[in-house]
């Protein structure tokens, strides 16, 4: 049975909640003196990164190692075209090494889906082009839930380059699935009106022309990273103008609720999309996001390796896999972390 995490869009609200609940239980492990449990002992995780990444790769690496998995990092700065090897060949070669999990980051949307079609190993999408970054959305949701106690009914503003952002897409899917009211805004070139069509489930999603309107009464403010090279492709005139008109500063933040929290997926361009006094302010949860990233990725690796209920988001997954996916966990992760320590039965 193929079990992958390719995107948030294919997950049900129940499946999202299950990931989050499992991640909660994993948070504690990272606070221990000995940050290691044997949950994934004997399992091999390959981190396959076709894009430079420090934060996400390290986060997945820690998530694997803290569960005693063997973690292999493969970095390739080139896509299959420049390398002369097709993605399919790369996949088959990795598959021949018998990994249990492949974590892939790739500049082309859909690369994880293509990998998943030929691999027996579970595939985790760690960001594919402008498509999805599901573990980022999960860690963002975990962070919000910890601070606000819920997602449903919250007003969330997402600001910046929505067109090219996989973080924005995954968050739009996740937050609306869980019933949040999402407002997005950015320069007209980067905030297409059609973005409202990404709404899922019970929540709502609206595209505002002005950043100020999206911020009005927000409980949560998410700021997206601006890629400097977008200026050269004529999406906006200058970084200076971007900072003045679209950046999050204290004056703009005042439109949000007094207890609004501020998030950013990193790495930040200080003084461009986010002012330093906001990024370093009391309402900023940017470092909590990083901490939660490890917990979420531990949960994802654990669940996809066969712990607890199986989760499938493979578009072509058979019906029984879907049925399995929503089944309640028969085994509490906490139990697994102790009892399973000596359990060597493969899933």
């Amino acid at each position: 049975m193929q079990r992958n995490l390719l995107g948030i869009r294919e997950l049900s609200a129940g499946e999202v909640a299950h990931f989050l609940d499992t991640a909660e239980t994993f948070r504690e492990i990272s606070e221990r003196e000995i940050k290691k449990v044997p949950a994934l002992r004997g399992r091999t995780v390959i981190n396959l990164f076709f894009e430079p990444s420090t934060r996400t790769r390290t986060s997945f690496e820690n998530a694997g190692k803290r569960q005693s998995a063997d973690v292999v990092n493969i970095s390739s700065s080139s896509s299959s075209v420049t390398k002369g090897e097709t993605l399919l060949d790369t996949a088959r070669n990795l598959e021949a090494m018998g990994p249990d999990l492949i974590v892939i980051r790739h500049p082309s949307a859909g690369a994880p889906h293509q990998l998943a079609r030929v691999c027996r190993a579970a595939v985790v999408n760690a960001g594919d082009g402008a498509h999805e970054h599901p573990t980022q959305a999960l860690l963002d949701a975990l962070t919000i839930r910890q601070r606000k106690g819920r997602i449903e009914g919250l007003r969330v503003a997402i600001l910046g380059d929505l067109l090219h952002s996989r973080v924005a897409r995954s968050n739009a899917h996740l937050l609306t699935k869980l019933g949040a009211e999402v407002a997005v805004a950015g320069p007209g070139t980067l905030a297409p009106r059609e973005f409202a069509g990404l709404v899922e489930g019970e929540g709502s999603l609206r595209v505002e022309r002005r950043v100020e309107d999206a911020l009005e009464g927000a409980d949560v403010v998410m700021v997206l990273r601006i890629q400097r090279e977008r200026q050269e492709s004529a999406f906006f005139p200058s970084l200076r103008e971007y900072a003045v008109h679209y950046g999050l500063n204290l004056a703009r933040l005042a439109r949000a609720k007094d207890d609004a929290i501020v998030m950013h997926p990193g790495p930040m361009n200080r003084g461009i999309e986010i002012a330093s006094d906001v990024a370093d302010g009391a309402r900023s949860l940017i470092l909590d996001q990083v901490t939660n990233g490890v917990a979420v990725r531990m949960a994802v690796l654990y669940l996809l390796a066969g712990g607890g209920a199986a989760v499938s988001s493979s578009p072509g997954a058979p019906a029984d896999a879907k049925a399995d996916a929503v089944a309640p966990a028969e085994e509490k992760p906490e139990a697994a972390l102790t009892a399973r320590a000596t359990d060597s039965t493969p899933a």
Partner: protein
Amino acid sequence: MRLLITNGYLIDPTQGLNAGRDLLIEDGRVAAVLKRGESQPEGAQVFDATGLVVAPGFIDLHTHLREPGQEYKETIASGAAAAVAGGFASVCAMPNTDPVNDNPAVTSFIVEQAAQARLANVFPVGAITKGSKGAELAEMGEMRRAGIVAVTDDGRGVPSAGMMRRAMEYARGLDLAVMDHCEDRSLAAGGVMHEGEWSLRLGLRGAPALAEESDAARDCALAELTGARVHLAHVSTRGALEAVRRAKERGLFVTCEVAPHHFALTDEAVKDYDTNTKMNPPLRSREHVEAILEGLRDGTVDAVATDHAPHHADEKALEFDHAPFGVTGLETAVALALDRLVHAGVVGLERLVELFSTNPARVFNLEGRGTLRAGAHADVTVLDPELRWTFDASRSKSKSRNTPFDGWTFHGAAVATVVAGRVVYRRAEAEAQSAVRSKN
């Protein structure tokens, strides 16, 4: 050499024929259309077409045969074999080979290879500009003498309106149709699929419908200015169809074709990132598909053409962003049209024959084709509109397998193809089926 196709149902819009008739062929030409049982010519080979539709040979206005230069994708022989297996007696070979068909030497090579293959008729289409680079006119007159039937810079288009104007004026003098691939590159902006809800959801760069529509509007205006015969290739958008509709109302010689994948699929088919759903123009949203169906119904669309674009499996195994545009189509086009247009009630069989034969012959001025009048070339397509069959890409006659229709089951098929009086393809299942029918 005599061939009698008997007991079939003959549809030929050029003669207003839609009735049970026998077709007598002699020496590569149509000798006569006969009432059933009118005569039993001595010594003729007899093709029993009981329960089948007999039509003038189908013509694909838009085929990429890849030879010369990319024989690993397709050759003229393999492409011609796929063509006749799909019911096409003739194909029009696009010039974007390597080298480009922009001079009479390449044209002659194509004609010669096609003659050796001896399957489908292959009509070369020459380039508009040298190397299809958009800067200097290609030798249209010399290529015409060598056998081209039209000109196009397909795959690229002609970005400069000024250059296109000159090309149309020059081609008009030679009575050659100018076929254009409508795509404003600055608007398409490197898009790999249709810009819309699905491109946004999938995080793939979108090319807006407007990229096609604005060039189509430009070409229609240039057709009026120059008086040239203008044919718009693979039209896929509501706006381009509206431009053609208006041009026709004004009495201009503007024609257009649509590709089967554009009426059979929407951009939602891209959702699993299967690179066999990547082609240019891209699969469009429902709104545009509806407009294509409307154009097929109301006569705005002149022809169904495959845009058969073979690519090797290794090339299609790349990321969606990097895989080449294009899908094969010769062996599925007629079946898709029977299934999705005729059986779905969009058009009748007579209109289908117009779309695949009568009109293509008119669009590229192919003398003695697209008709079964006495004296015409004996090119015939035989259809079994009721045959149910499943397409298995691994058994394709094409050298490439890049189709989104692998494993699809169709209602209706082309079951035999006659070229110059020779039965060059006959489907095995059809024989089995007609055998069953004759027993009943």
